[in-house]
């Protein structure tokens, strides 16, 4: 009986909320902190890729990307075509015929490395270049000897001629 009386009293007397706002704030804070603990990277992704949910922005960026790809493909194909045309139209002639025999180090390096070499921006010293020129000269001499030996053997000559013709045909896409 007593127990029932106590229970009735407790049911009738409701708790008094002195600071309902504070409680609400604490609850909300807990909810947010729980969310943050769940997906920490979600915010960055949303920040970076938020644009995908904006229709016009998404379409514009896709169009810009496609435009970039088209420009790239077009430019590269035009350049490739021009280089191929150049290979067909150009007359490739012997080095000695074209430039006489210039002995300057930068001419030598340009001949060796082509446009990859910038004479105005090199770290190679003059002494090193001269050493290289000397070695190159020796190599050229040996190469001349080799050509002479090959020239004396018609079979080897014919074999090399065939190989070189085949290679040149491939090189110039003939």
């Amino acid at each position: 009986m007593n127990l029932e009386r106590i229970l009735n009293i407790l049911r009738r007397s409701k708790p008094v909320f002195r600071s309902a706002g504070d409680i609400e704030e604490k609850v909300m804070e807990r909810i947010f902190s729980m969310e943050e603990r769940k997906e920490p990277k979600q915010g960055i992704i949303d920040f970076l890729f938020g644009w995908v949910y904006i229709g016009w922005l998404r379409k514009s960026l896709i169009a810009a990307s496609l435009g970039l790809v088209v420009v790239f493909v077009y430019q590269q194909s035009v350049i490739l075509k021009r280089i191929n045309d150049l290979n067909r139209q150009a007359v490739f002639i012997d080095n000695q015929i074209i430039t006489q025999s210039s002995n300057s180090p930068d001419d030598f390096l340009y001949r060796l490395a082509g446009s990859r070499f910038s004479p105005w921006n090199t770290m190679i010293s003059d002494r090193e270049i001269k050493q290289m020129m000397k070695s190159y000269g020796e190599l050229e001499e040996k190469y001349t000897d080799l050509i002479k030996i090959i020239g004396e053997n018609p079979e080897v000559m014919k074999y090399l001629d065939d190989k070189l013709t085949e290679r040149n045909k491939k090189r110039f896409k003939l």
Partner: protein
Amino acid sequence: MKIKPLKIVVSLILVMVTSCNEPETVITNIVHPDGSVTRKLEMRSLLDNDFRISDIQVPFDSTWSVRDSVEINDNGDTIWVKRAEKLFTDVNEINRDYLTDSSANNEIRRRAEFRKRFKWFNTEYRFAEIIERTMEHGYPVADFLNEEELKWFYTPENIAIGKLTGADSIKFRALSDSVDVKSDKWMYKSLVAEWIAKLMELAAEKPGVDEAVGKLKQNEDFIVSLVIADEESFDSLWLNDIILREIIGEENTLLLRADADSAAKITGEYVLKRFLPYRVIIRMPGEIIGTNGFIDSARILLWPTNSNFFLTEPYVMYAESKTVNKWAWIVSGIFLLFVLAGVILWIIKR
């Protein structure tokens, strides 16, 4: 003497084309990405080391750094070499030198051009050395020569000699003969056209000149065929005014005789400008993508010059190249990946 100088003019032009004992000169233009150009001059002489400024083919002054040397060639001959170099900040500086040109070729108008175009993935460069035409009313040589003959026409002399004396010499001699005959015709026809145009200018205010010049123009081929067929007969016919009378009539011949003489004289002087040939080499930044020059295996570009090349059309020696803008490739790649990732994310979340 009326049109008689025509033969002399052509003969002189042909003589001028082949240089005799002049120093061999090579002008190298090293084009830098910022548009500045390092010009190098290399003169080689077998005779002596007396390189006079008046013999140098391009504008030259004390601002060039000069280095003279003596070398021995493969045949054991002594060669005197003059090397000079100057950095031009841009083509305008080169063109200013051309405007105040006091070199051996100062009677010829020349200029240089440089263009740089940013095309996002690549930057393209074009450099050209241009020699302006000496005749105003001549015909393009391409109207007279086919593709193969044109190649031969522009071939450097030493390469042509090599071919004429090497393997397949019979083929090249036939080609050379054909080019000689056709280029003679081209030159005569251009000279006649120039003479007619000058006559028109000189006698512009005289009555009936339009009709007379029109008749001369119609008979241009006839006049050329007479010159080519028999020069002595032509001279005799011309001296006696028989050709002029036949084409434009007695009355007009009397009216235009003096002007015709003056026009022939002017044409001769106009065309016979002093020109010492030289070779031009252009080195471009990056990779070569276009040129009308000769290329060797190291991708060095070369152009010969002679007075025939710019007789009726400007002689444009151009080279085009490109450099890759690596940063633009990287930026574009990142952008594409970013957009692609966004689109994939959007598809997944939808």
